[in-house]
């Protein structure tokens, strides 16, 4: 009798369910690490090989030396050594071009944390390193901002809590989500002045919701890739000396 009710139950369920010819019985899910024990497929290797050789010759040139690891691996930081390295080299090389073009100087640089895609490991720094740090094809642009837009920029940084790279001309101190002080070359921003900020074309176009970069008073495209600036800097210097220097503090 019990069995009969059970069977009836099955029957009713079968009728009421969608009539599919198959019934899903079991699902098994997992992930398999692609570890070095797996033998490489020779057909794939043969196709990759000519590309790899051409790249190797281009990418393995040693340009500089890293005395330590430069990583952007800490989300709680207000600044990172690699971010400072990037922002300062963008200032140096970007301002050289901007000054030639306009006879004016950049006030500071702001990039985005996510734009640094890899660290630089201790040891020889190669052309490849520059491509890893900056795989994007972004160009440098300089925007002229009003005092109010500068305030928007600072407010954005206060809330975002990410170690967005800032060049050494700017020193910011946050308390909670507010700006305690923001000094450009040791001075407060002036309500009656406008400021030249170097950033990437990606951010200027509203990337990362840095909307204060949209519709600036003036816009100068330097036609100079950020990655090219890294390569130029690495060729100029022997050793990467960047460090965290307290330019951004959060209390």
């Amino acid at each position, binding site marked *: 009798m019990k069995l009969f009710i059970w069977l009836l139950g099955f029957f009713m369920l079968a009728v009421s369910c969608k009539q599919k010819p198959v019934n899903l019985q079991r699902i098994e899910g997992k992930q398999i690490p692609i570890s070095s024990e797996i033998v490489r497929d020779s057909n794939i290797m043969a196709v990759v090989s000519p590309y790899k050789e051409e790249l190797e010759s281009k990418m393995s040139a040693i340009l500089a030396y890293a005395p330590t690891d430069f990583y952007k691996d800490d989300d709680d930081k207000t600044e990172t050594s690699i971010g400072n390295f990037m922002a300062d080299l963008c200032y140096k090389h970007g301002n050289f071009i901007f000054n030639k073009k306009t006879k004016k100087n950049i006030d500071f640089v702001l990039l985005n944390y996510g734009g640094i895609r890899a660290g630089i490991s201790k040891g020889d720094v190669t052309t*490849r390193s520059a491509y890893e740090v900056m795989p994007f094809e972004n160009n440098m642009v300089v925007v002229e901002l009003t005092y109010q837009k500068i305030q928007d920029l600072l407010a954005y940084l206060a809330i975002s809590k990410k170690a967005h790279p800032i060049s050494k001309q700017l020193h910011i101190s946050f308390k909670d989500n507010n700006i305690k002080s923001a000094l450009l070359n040791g001075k407060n921003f002036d309500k009656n002045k406008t400021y030249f900020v170097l950033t990437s074309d990606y951010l200027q176009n509203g990337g990362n919701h840095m909307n204060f970069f949209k519709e600036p008073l003036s816009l100068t495209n330097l036609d100079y890739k950020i990655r090219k600036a890294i390569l130029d800097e690495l060729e100029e210097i022997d050793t990467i000396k960047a460090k965290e220097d307290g330019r951004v503090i959060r209390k």
Partner: protein
Amino acid sequence: MDRRKFIQQSGATAAFIGIGSLSLQSFNKNSAKHITILHTNDVHSHIEPFAANDKLYANMGGVARRASLIHSIRKENPNTLLFDAGDMFLVTPYFNFYGGELEFKLMSMMGYDAATIGNHDFDNGIDGLYRQLPHAQFDLLSANYDFKNTVLDTHVKPYKIFLKNGIKVGVFGLGIELDGLVDNKLYKETKYNDPVAVAQDMSRILNKEEDCDLVICLSHLGYNYKINSNKISDLKLASLTKGIDLIIGGHTHTFLKKPTVTKNSIGKNMLINQVGWGGINLGRIDYYFDRETKGANGTTIIV
């Protein structure tokens, strides 16, 4: 770790046998069907393994190894499908120098069946992606990007149905909102439509009209957003829709210890999986079907 997994598995199998004793009589080997789903996400042009001095992933990954693994799984079960959840491009010089050509060639060699489009797949512009299409012998799927006013018009399908050993597998793609994430100059007139509404529509079409046995979503929405909890994610999408069996995710580079079992809008179990990034892992989901309709047993999920 391994021991625990074994115990978990044997426990689950025992439960399955216990509940299923009635239908077991009609269960024979010839009528059972087995579909294997393999997947990657955010491979980001990592054609070679990570360098030996890499801090986190030394010697992991590499296409040549992934190809061997896929090949051996296909030998074991020819009824295997292989998908990617987007961001195939960018991060290594292979992309800077060759624009994605090699990535697509190798994915074709490995027998990828479909991929969805990630935000970084627009990095050489929509024209840059279009130029690489001749190298891709697999479909790009996106149901919520409207490419009508772009060069990709008619080249990207919303969904595709794969028939493997009599099992109908419906697969559709979902892309992330591009505004603020990708330079507008790159994606041009690509229109982003609400992924939830689109997913519900896709699920209806694939379940009701196409009568699929399995419905899979290739999503580049991201696994979960803790800070911006309003933002649509795979976990959110799962809870807001029904009729999707598996979400293969990407974008957030999430390493899950095991696939997430979660409930859809009507409380039915489904899976979400994402396998980190850079080709470090291959995701594998196996579906076992019984030819007989004894629908009351439910499904055993072992992760």
